[in-house]
């Protein structure tokens, strides 16, 4: 990253004259001073330290974790703790359950949200604006309002501790519909659809050969966002699934942390590490794309 050094030295104080830099999206940005780097470094430290400390705590014995001064460097117990957590509380099963739930929710949300987003963005139909307003308005309804009837429902169906009780209510999300609409509004030229229509393509063909290819980048981002959300979802899974049944990772963790017998905090934090690590790996690999998705502007209202 030496190219920055080749630019004219950043002015300390005020720039002598307004500089025009066309062609770069960061055109208006000032160069950062050392103070900026200090603050940013501090922010990154605060963001990452609890995650690092989770790893540290998961690699010590339970006794060591609850001793002051706290351990700050990784210990040797990580694999031991991993195998205990894995066997004792079935983190393996929870991991699989969570993957199934998050995967199913992400796939179906992306599919349905793309279809609905396409309709809201590019198709004319009666009541479009009213329906879109309803979609947006549903985002404000707290999940607390529906858990009691839902719980009765899944009890009647015998679905307590069944993964479908968590998957079904999340099959499609208002946020996703809105996200895809915002993206397709700009990304999909109407001419493309009209051309396909003139060629005699019916709706499904247009979806498959025109909409999906155009929407693919946004679908990928939405899929990741929803996957993260579903992976971390807590309130409803905590009610619908019990730690003793087939929990997701979050439910299993809540069970780990609140047991009545003496708690081995190293094991608890190892569980937290298992729950966090897969997503962190995804973030490390795809971080730029996820950041790009959030900053793409589609998230804004």
């Amino acid at each position, binding site marked *: *990253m030496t190219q920055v050094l080749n630019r004219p030295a950043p002015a300390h104080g005020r720039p002598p004259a307004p500089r*025009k830099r066309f062609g770069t999206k*960061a055109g208006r940005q*000032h160069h950062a001073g050392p103070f900026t780097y200090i603050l*940013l470094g501090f*922010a*990154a430290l605060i*963001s*990452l330290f*609890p995650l690092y400390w*989770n790893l540290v*705590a998961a690699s010590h014995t339970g006794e060591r974790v*609850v001793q*002051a001064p*706290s351990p700050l460097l990784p210990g040797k117990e990580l694999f031991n703790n991993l195998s205990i957590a894995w066997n004792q509380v079935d983190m393996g099963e929870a991991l699989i359950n969570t993957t199934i739930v998050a995967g199913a929710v992400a796939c179906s949300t992306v599919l*349905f949200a793309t279809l*609905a987003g396409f309709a809201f963005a590019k*198709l*004319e*139909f009666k009541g479009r604006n009213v329906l879109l307003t309803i979609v947006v308005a*549903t985002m404000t309804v*707290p999940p*607390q*309002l*529906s*858990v*009691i*009837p*839902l*719980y009765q429902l899944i009890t009647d169906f015998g679905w307590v501790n069944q993964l479908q009780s968590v998957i*079904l209510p999340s099959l*499609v999300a208002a946020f996703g519909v809105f996200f895809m609409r915002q993206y397709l509004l700009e990304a999909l030229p109407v001419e493309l659809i009209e051309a396909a229509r003139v060629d005699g393509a*019916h709706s*499904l063909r247009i979806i498959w050969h025109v909409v999906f290819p155009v929407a693919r980048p946004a679908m990928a981002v939405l899929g990741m966002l929803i996957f993260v959300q579903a992976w*971390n979802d807590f*309130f409803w899974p905590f*009610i619908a699934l019990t730690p003793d049944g087939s929990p997701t*990772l*979050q439910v299993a*963790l*809540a069970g*780990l*942390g*609140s047991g009545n017998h003496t*708690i081995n*905090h190293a094991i608890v934090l190892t*569980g*937290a*590490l298992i729950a*966090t690590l897969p*997503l962190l790996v*995804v*973030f490390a690999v795809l*971080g*730029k794309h996820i*950041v790009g998705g959030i*900053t793409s*502007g589609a*998230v*804004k209202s």
Partner: protein
Amino acid sequence: MATSLQPDQDASPPVVLSGSPKEPKKHRDPDSWRSRLYRIDLKATPYVYVAPFFLVFAAFGLFPLVYTGWLSLQKVELGGEAEWRGLDNYIRLWDSDFFWNALANTFTIGLISTVPQLLMALGLAHLLNYRIRGRGFYRVAVLAPYATSIAAAALVFAQLFNTDYGLINQLLGYVGIDAVNWETEKWPAQIAISTIVTWRWTGYNALIYLAAMQAVPNDLYEAAALDGASRFRQFISITIPSIKPTILFTIVVSTIGATQLFGEPLIFGGSLGIGGGSGNQYQTLSLLMYEKGWITGALGQASAIAWVMLLLLLLIGLVQYLLGRSGRGKKKDGAARS
């Protein structure tokens, strides 16, 4: 599935085509069922595309919402028969100290998590908007907490905030501050829980702000720089007003999130979590609702709490709407984003 609407567009019925097998039908007979089907296709498919959302919402959102309202007027136990009680549940909430305590806690925790969170996100976005080396790293780093689950974050912070051996009290000890009782004292406990929320969401909000900041036209800054405005002045007078719709959006989203706070206090409190600590010092409305519904078994009471939450959100929404409207008069670009 949407597929069933369009079964035969490609495979034309053999009966009609039998006379002239190769010739495409639409040239010969433009008003045939095929073009009618095309029109139906055009008219109906939008509804087919949006149907899944509305079906799911009707089944898992709207119906339960109304049913919860109905339940809130009854005396119902888990698995038992309903008994009409009118507004009894609401009156009992009004008389209940636990309810007012939970309402106040929800409000204060919401305030001390949302306000610093959004202010820090603004500052952070401003910093990230500078020309910096390794900006990809900083962006991913501040977003990392977003990838952490409520449960994992709350468990880690419960250790960091532990009164006896927690790292935070050790750090405070180095600067000469006595150990703070983060678990049993009201304000420290609420601050600790707010810290978890703030930690998880600041980076996410910062990136949303950053996106909005990058859309602010460059000329504005250049003109301001010509007039001799300092960078801080530019931030206050150009950046903030320009991204006001985005700020409003994040305020709405954070408020909704704060009203529903559940997992952080639950897990932070360990075995005392459901009650919101030994003295209910951080019991939120959601926690109270869970306690009423699933521990006490009083589903009618729990439903009433849920409905109070909805009314609360509507009230907050109304206030924000009015505030947003009063601010729009003086700004021309208010309609820039829809």
